[in-house]
């Protein structure tokens, strides 16, 4: 079967423009994604990744918006690059249907494209589903997305190493400035290329190259406009029209898990609730009687959404001192809730930061149950999932 490829603008130059955009942006997605794992501290998922563990360092607490930035970039860039990835795949698809090469090395190179293309599509699909809480795939997102990332990285590094000279040569073959001035009437195919991207018998053009670039750029802008709202507070939040985090209950800000979903019985956070510090037990009234501190801190989640609020409560370092461990080497926070995220480790830096709180109030009112009443942890730059709600106990390590 011989396919007649019809597009007159498909060619190495156009492919290389998309390639250059991805070459610049994908490393940012990769690095911010890997940093997310570091931010999880000593309890990342999956736990045992053999030699592919990342450098271990204490996740900083300054600036407070660090995780908001890294994770927002990872998810946001990942979404807005979807049109570029699709355009890049469209631009090279004739190669999928070319006859396999006899040269073993070239054949092997071609086979590794499965890692590259399969890897990025797998990462996009699992990532998009995860940020919309759709677990239709039925396996551990964390494990799959981490393994998929390394498979993609392997394919990506190889592809860049092999194709960089071609990309540079192709980009030099035409002037971007000239292309941006060339209307439909002046659009002609690129000269035949050895890679076979340029159609030998194309249809007449219906879109100029600048039109195609504008189309892909427009797709990126459209997705950016529909996504950025999940990191903004105020009325702009609802511009994330189609994302779950564009919606909030009136007068409220987003939560990562509702009280009902936590499965906690109301009695467990009622009158009898107290905070267990090991040597000391404190009721909520006793906590409220301690010196209170107020801080504006973001909650930023792995799904890329974030929100900044004004939290008040007792400094974690004051609680450490009360527990008789004024200079802790770290802490472990346990929730009333049970489940995989019911226990969170904190580093010494996270405990001792002056804005790290066991919050009792937010925006001038007592926490609601959905936001973690009677008390929740809030620490600068700590991933939201580790800002434990419905805190039952904090163990400060000597």
């Amino acid at each position, binding site marked *: 079967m011989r396919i007649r490829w019809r597009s007159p603008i498909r060619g190495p130059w156009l492919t290389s423009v998309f390639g250059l955009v991805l070459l610049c942006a994908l490393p940012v997605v990769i690095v911010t994604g890997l940093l997310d794992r570091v931010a999880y501290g000593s309890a990342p998922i999956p736990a045992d990744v053999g030699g592919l563990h990342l450098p271990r360092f204490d996740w900083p607490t300054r600036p407070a918006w660090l995780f908001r930035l890294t994770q927002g970039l990872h998810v946001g860039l990942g979404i807005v690059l979807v049109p570029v990835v699709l355009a890049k795949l469209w631009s090279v698809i004739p190669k999928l249907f070319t006859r396999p090469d006899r040269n073993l090395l070239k054949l092997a190179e071609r086979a590794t494209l499965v890692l590259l293309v399969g890897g990025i599509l797998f990462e996009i699909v699992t990532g998009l589903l995860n940020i919309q809480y759709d677990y239709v795939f039925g396996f551990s997102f964390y494990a799959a997305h981490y393994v998929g990332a390394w498979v993609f990285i392997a394919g990506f590094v190889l592809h860049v190493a092999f194709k960089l000279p071609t990309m540079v040569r192709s980009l030099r073959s035409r002037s971007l400035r000239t292309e941006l001035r060339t209307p439909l009437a002046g659009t002609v195919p690129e000269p035949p290329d050895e890679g076979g991207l340029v159609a030998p018998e194309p249809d007449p053009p219906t879109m100029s190259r600048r039109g195609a670039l504008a189309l892909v750029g427009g797709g990126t802008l459209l997705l950016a406009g529909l996504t950025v709202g999940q990191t903004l507070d105020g009325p702009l939040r609802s511009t994330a029209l189609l994302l779950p985090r564009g919606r909030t209950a009136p007068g409220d800000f*987003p939560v990562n898990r509702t009280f009902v979903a936590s499965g906690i019985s109301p009695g467990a956070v009622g009158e009898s609730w107290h905070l267990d510090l090991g040597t000391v037990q404190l009721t909520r009234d006793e906590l409220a009687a301690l010196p209170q501190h107020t801080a504006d801190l973001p909650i930023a989640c792995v799904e890329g959404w974030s929100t900044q609020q004004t939290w008040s409560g007792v400094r974690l370092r004051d609680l450490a001192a009360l527990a008789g461990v004024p200079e802790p080497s770290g802490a472990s926070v346990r929730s009333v809730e049970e489940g995989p995220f019911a226990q969170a480790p904190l580093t010494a830096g996270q405990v001792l930061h002056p804005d790290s709180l066991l919050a009792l109030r937010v925006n001038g009112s007592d926490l609601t149950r959905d936001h973690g009443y009677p008390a929740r942890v809030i620490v600068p730059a700590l991933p939201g999932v580790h800002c434990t709600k419905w805190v039952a106990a904090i163990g400060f390590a000597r």
Partner: protein
Amino acid sequence: MRTVARAAGLLGCVALAGYAATIILRDPTLHPSIPGMLIWFVGALLLHDLVLFPLYAAADRALTLLPATRVPLVNHVRLPLLGAGLTFLVYLPGIVRQGEPVVLGASGLGQAPFLARWLWLVLAMTAVSALVWVVRVTRRSAAGG
């Protein structure tokens, strides 16, 4: 020498990808997920190359059947269609209300508004595109072209 370097790079990267896959083997609780992960990995590839691409290529081909007009209709149909397709794919779970119990547990809010919002968005893109076409036709007529 170049061939040796290429072959070495190739082997190195395949080894890295293979080693990454062993992360799954390290955790016995992940073993039942192996077929699912493989299916989704290969499935994403096949779905793009053998379903999504032929579908949108065929749809694009159908645009050549549009009536010939002085200002061609093709891009005024193509753009809203692509916008609709792109937003549908990216925001699919909310639009088709897949995974609603988890969304509800996570955010306290459901997915009810998303389908209507998406339809409005598609309508808006179509309307803007049609309006621009009308403006272009009018301007061309006014210019006596």
